């Protein structure tokens, strides 16, 4: 065994990172390519779990926990509920037309991805600025309440209005029992 403990450690770290990246992209693939919407939502949840792992690698454990809590715990479950309430049916498009549509969509999305990757590879990134903060949860809370306080308040207002609007929209047209 010529592997030292340090290199084994970094190898494991890299393997877990690749696992998270594969979960993110594979989940996204399932979410967009599957024909049944239940599988799409499960793929979305898998993708968000992988994304939470990537956030952990970006040294923000708070964000990764919030990602699991908000996206996997709230948004995926809400989409599941909406599917139960509305009973989405399978597509009734002719086979040839669907194939054509999917090919065109795949082609455009592939071109988009390839273009973005070429741009990312070619860009000359400037050297990183010296970090003034370490990004702990205390600093995040302070930033939310001081520097980004206004945006924070506006977002909370947006959330309030959105939930009120959702109630109003979903309630209108509802038949009252005789």
């Amino acid at each position: 065994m010529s592997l030292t403990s340090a290199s084994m450690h970094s190898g494991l770290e890299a393997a877990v990172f690749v696992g998270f990246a594969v979960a993110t992209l594979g989940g996204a693939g399932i979410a967009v390519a599957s024909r049944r919407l239940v599988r799409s939502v499960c793929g979305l949840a898998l993708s968000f779990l992988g994304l939470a792992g990537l956030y952990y690698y970006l040294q923000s454990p708070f964000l990764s926990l919030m990602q699991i809590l908000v996206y996997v715990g709230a948004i995926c479950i809400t989409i599941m509920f909406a599917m139960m309430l509305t009973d989405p049916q399978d597509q009734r498009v002719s086979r040839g037309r669907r194939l054509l549509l999917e090919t065109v969509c795949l082609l455009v999305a592939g071109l988009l991805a390839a273009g973005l990757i070429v741009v990312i590879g070619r860009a000359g990134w400037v050297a990183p600025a010296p970090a003034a903060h370490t990004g702990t949860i205390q600093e995040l809370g302070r930033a939310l309440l001081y520097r980004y306080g206004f945006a924070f308040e506006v977002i909370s207002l947006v959330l309030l209005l959105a939930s009120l609007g959702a109630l109003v929209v979903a309630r209108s047209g509802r038949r009252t029992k005789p």
Partner: protein
Amino acid sequence: MNFLLWSGQLQVYLVIGALLFAAGFYGFFRHRTLVGMLISGELIMAGAALNFMAFGHFRAADVVAGQTFALFIMGIAAAEAAIVLSIMIAVYRNYRSIETKDLKDLEG
């Protein structure tokens, strides 16, 4: 490119974000129901949030900025999901379907 160093490189995160965006774009036009389009929209937002996080971590003097933007994106995504779901329920009540091709009446 050494695979052991992938987790410490900005480009890897940007490529993952770009692929998430492309997947969301593909799904947005492929799915014919509102639920599918909502799912794809969430993927697009996730790609944007990953970009913000990566730039905030690797290139910004203020590490907190990226995390704050990702948190704001989460708030916006939650609001969007709530609105879209209520619209879906209202549409289903009127049309008995949430396929986009069935929604073609403009009636006051």
